[in-house]
């Protein structure tokens, strides 16, 4: 499990030893979206740190005056394109929340402008804030008192847990797989150059590293493009649809997507793999994850599928537990309920177009505990139960608005982490591309080998932030395993 370090870790991991502590909690400038996701009128991107003012200055057309709202536009310096019409406030140190220079950009609240603006401030040199980092800084700079320290600790702890879950997603994602391959090839180049530097007497066979560097550079550029297009990483509130076989999870997914996506059949266990689809409900991005039914069927592939479902469940921010209203509740339903315990949950009682045989109608509407749904509650408070029909569409609007209010009502943590993976990865990839670009032109310009190793090390550090791997020991391992050096 060592590789599944939390997001905190691997956003920063490597530089701790090899390149210093660059990405740890220090006095650089941090930025994050500080409002929940959703089309809630306005959204705020907040920056804190010594560079907050100059960074925004490079993007903002208006004039920042201390503690006054300034009107203007955020413009992408790369192409001059206007991203959003915004109001920005500059609050100079020390009379701010963090006691550092703080700039807040109020923009339109949709996820897209928010994210674009965040990306821009990151590319101008800010670093994505860790969960709780604004508060942490406020404490460390003496802004909040001792009594609040406990709250800070709790926040770091709980947010770290949330981050760990997201990290898991990232690690299992295709991005990290591709980055790992890339890292290995760069590590080989670095090991080659370093072996020749640290062991100058040894006869290390000549290698041509330029083709590897060019390939890596292209690959990083490709990853950046695809990450931008959302192909690799889908973001949003992860909603897992779970339930025993044939309660109509795939039908419900399709109904929510309003198009045929999952293969639907009346046979139990048709969905063996998990399917993921992104939808946007009232401006809140969701990723719907259809899972194979969890339960006992004769299918030999079922255990594998069930394991995948469990994984999807594990990674979900919100669980949509689907039950079949037309059938009596079974022990399997209750087993599944046990599995989703501790998760944020909505219960969708499907097939309300058929005669209700689950004897749930009354109890559901009353939200009371009874003999049948006794397990379907947590800490005395029942999760919202909604009757729907995937077939007729009945109850779907209510389900959708329940999902949205669940998020915006704060029950699902819709804080910046939900958006971070992508910008964080993009930021790391962008830095890797920059370093590789330098390494490439260095090789072409005949710069001494050592400078190429510095650029490669920086590129590896950047990629290591995505995979959570550290390069210093990796480097020595690679050198000593690939080259017969030393005496």
């Amino acid at each position: 499990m060592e590789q599944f370090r939390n997001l905190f870790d691997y956003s920063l991991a490597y530089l701790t030893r090899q390149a210093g502590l660059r990405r740890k909690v220090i006095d650089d400038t941090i930025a994050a979206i500080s409002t929940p996701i959703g089309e809630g009128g306005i959204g705020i991107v907040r920056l804190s740190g010594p560079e907050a003012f100059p960074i925004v200055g490079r993007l903002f057309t208006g004039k920042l005056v201390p503690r006054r709202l300034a009107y203007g536009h955020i413009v992408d310096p790369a192409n001059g394109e206007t991203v959003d019409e915004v109001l920005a406030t500059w609050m100079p140190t020390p009379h701010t929340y963090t006691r550092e220079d703080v700039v807040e950009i109020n923009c339109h609240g949709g996820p897209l402008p928010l994210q674009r603006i965040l990306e821009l401030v990151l590319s101008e040199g800010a670093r994505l804030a860790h969960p709780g980092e604004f508060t942490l800084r406020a404490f460390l700079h003496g802004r909040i008192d001792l009594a609040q320290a406990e709250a800070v600790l709790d926040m770091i702890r709980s947010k770290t847990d949330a981050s760990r879950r997201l990290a898991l997603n990232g690690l299992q994602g295709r991005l990290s797989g591709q980055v790992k391959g890339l890292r290995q090839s760069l590590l080989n180049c670095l090991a080659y150059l370093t072996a020749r530097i640290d062991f100058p007497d040894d006869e290390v066979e000549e290698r041509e590293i330029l083709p590897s560097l060019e390939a890596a550079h292209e690959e990083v550029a490709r990853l950046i493009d695809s990450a931008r297009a959302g192909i690799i990483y889908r973001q949003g509130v992860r909603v897992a649809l779970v339930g025993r076989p044939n309660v109509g999870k795939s039908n419900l997914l399709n109904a929510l997507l309003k198009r045929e996506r999952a293969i639907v059949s009346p046979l139990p266990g048709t969905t063996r793999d998990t399917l993921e689809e992104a939808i946007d409900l009232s401006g809140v991005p969701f990723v719907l994850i259809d899972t194979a039914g969890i339960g006992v069927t004769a299918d030999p592939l079922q255990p594998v599928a069930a394991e995948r479902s469990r994984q999807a469940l594990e990674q979900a921010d919100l669980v949509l537990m689907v039950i079949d209203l037309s059938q009596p509740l079974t022990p399997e339903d209750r087993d599944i309920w046990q599995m989703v315990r501790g998760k944020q949950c909505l219960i969708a009682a499907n097939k309300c177009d058929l005669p209700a045989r689950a004897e749930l109608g009354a109890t559901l509407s009353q939200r009371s505990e009874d003999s049948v749904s006794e397990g379907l509650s947590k800490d005395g408070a029942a999760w919202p139960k909604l009757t729907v029909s995937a077939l007729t569409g009945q109850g779907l609007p209510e389900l959708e608005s329940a999902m949205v209010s669940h998020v915006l009502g704060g029950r699902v943590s819709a804080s910046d982490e939900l958006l971070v993976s992508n910008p964080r990865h993009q930021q790391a990839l962008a830095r890797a591309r920059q370093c590789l670009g330098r390494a490439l032109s260095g090789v072409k310009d005949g710069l001494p080998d050592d400078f190429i190793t510095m650029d490669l090390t920086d590129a590896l550090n950047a990629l290591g932030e995505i995979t959570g791997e550290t390069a210093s020991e990796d480097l020595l391992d690679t050198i000593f395993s690939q080259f017969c050096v030393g005496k």
Partner: protein
Amino acid sequence: MRYDVIVIGAGHAGCETALASARLGARTLLLTMNLDNVALMPCNPSIGGPAKGHAVREIDALGGEMARNIDRTFIQIKMLNTGKGPAVQALRAQADKKLYSLAMKHTLERQPGLDLKQALVEEIRRDESELWVKTHLGQTYQARCLVITTGTSLNGRVIVGDRAYAAGRSGELPALGLSQSLKNMGFTLGRLKTGTPPRIDARSIDFSKTIVHPGSDVPLYFSQGPSLLPVLHASNPLYPPGPDTSWRPQLPCYQVHTNPQTHEIIRQNLDRAPLFNGLIQGIGPRSCPSIEDKIVKFAGKTSHPLFLEPEGWETNEVYVQGANTSLPEDVQLALLRTIPALERVEMMRVGYAIEYDYVPPSQTSSSLESKLVPGLFFAGQINGTTGYEEAAGQGLIAGINAARKALGKPPLILRRDQAYIGVMIDDLVTRELTEPYRLLTSRAEFRLLLRQDNADLRLTPIGHELGLVGKERLEAVEAKRQVTLDGLARLQKVCVNPDKDTVALIARYGMAPLESNMTAAEFLRRQGVTYDALAAMGIAPDGYSPEVREQVEIEAKYAGYIARQRAAVERVRRLEERRIPDDFDYDSVGGLRYEAQQKLNRFHPATVGQACRVEGVTPADISLLLVHLERRRRTG
């Protein structure tokens, strides 16, 4: 007898320790079990190389002795890695081992305030305020501070083939009582291994079948201070002198190669190799593999280079660099004789492996004082390192800090952005050792700032402030710094225009044509442009010394890279300076993961910066730590 500082062991660490301590005004006793083996080089006859050579220059700038001693006694010197970048260029010298040892002994003998005595230490112990040393003859000495620099002697065991015997080094006694004393004091000991190749007789080498590697044909020295007279000797007529280097007599090294036949002999005898048959338990350094290890790990490689290095001006003994082995004597001889130049070779000393106890440095703080016993310091191989230069660097720091403690002053701790010595000690006290630790340029993340050419600029002021470097030398270094800064400022101001004359000059020097106006500094940044060319073209002043020209060229040419590393240093400075109290209880930090808690409790890092480098500690852990430190600060 009562001293301020006692040093046990007069190897490369112990000599620096004793000299630094005495020079700082502490009454110092240096004990060695054999006065004829002071500053002995029991393994290779060379000093320097990438990162190691850097450390030697740092020792010099701080007022240590190794650089001056090797400068006086080398029989060859060269600059390695020229063309690979200024940060990784490094000096390496071949020493006359006997002269090196003698010259160091004489320096020790002439040092006021330092007593040099031969004695085997059997026991150490501590009472309330002092440390006691008892010798094998029952004599006791006591001191405020004690520095142990015993190298591989602690419970040493030499292994050759199926033979193993207790020894400190080949032919020397092991220190058995000391290991026990340390255990009694509560220290945990670990076990490491290293090895050395056979020495062969120059008369039995056919030098006509070798490749010659001569020394530098331009003057080079480790010490950046005033030059010293070399100690020279008549050379051995049996060892071919190689090409004449007029600035100073030198001896070359000669290269040969192993071949499939060599490898076959090793393979056939692997069952007799202690490294593979279980006789050796300790872990050896990967950077120093034995020949049998190389053959096994790189089975596909049909040839390995070996370097024949003279051990002195007059001796017949030749060191076979690259053939470090613990195979039985008959196998060692047989494998050497498969090499054409060595067909009739005779061995004078047999290669061997040695296992020894070390004190895992999680028990040591950055000042090299042990955490467990105040006043007790460790330096050199006892801390798990390998190499003379690593030992000397630690010895110097331990000597400085032991003397300063005895005199009631705070310790000197070098940062990772100040010196390779700082990188090394920081690595030692924050990381698990999995093999003997060797300095490598790749361990220094800020290596562009830690060049061998600027060791004097980096560290002479510190050496002077400590009291180890005289005023004259400091003034010379500060003058160099000032002239360099002036030179750089001038390059910023002077403009290079693509006028007729300049274009013609640029073409004459074979440099890329100039398209537009630029400053001389920008012009120097271009490929193939050197300071000397600028000076010759009349663009830059001609009057600077070669050292200043070098500084100006490097600082201007690689300004972008240097600025990036400086910025990286600045980014972490606050964390590096944030101290963690010695009595900080990590168990009180709620929410700290178990792994982090354990590691931090074990290493007890001195600063938040160090805590970050402890393996398995995550940024979340650091955040929690910061909050608790702040809370503690506020509540007092």
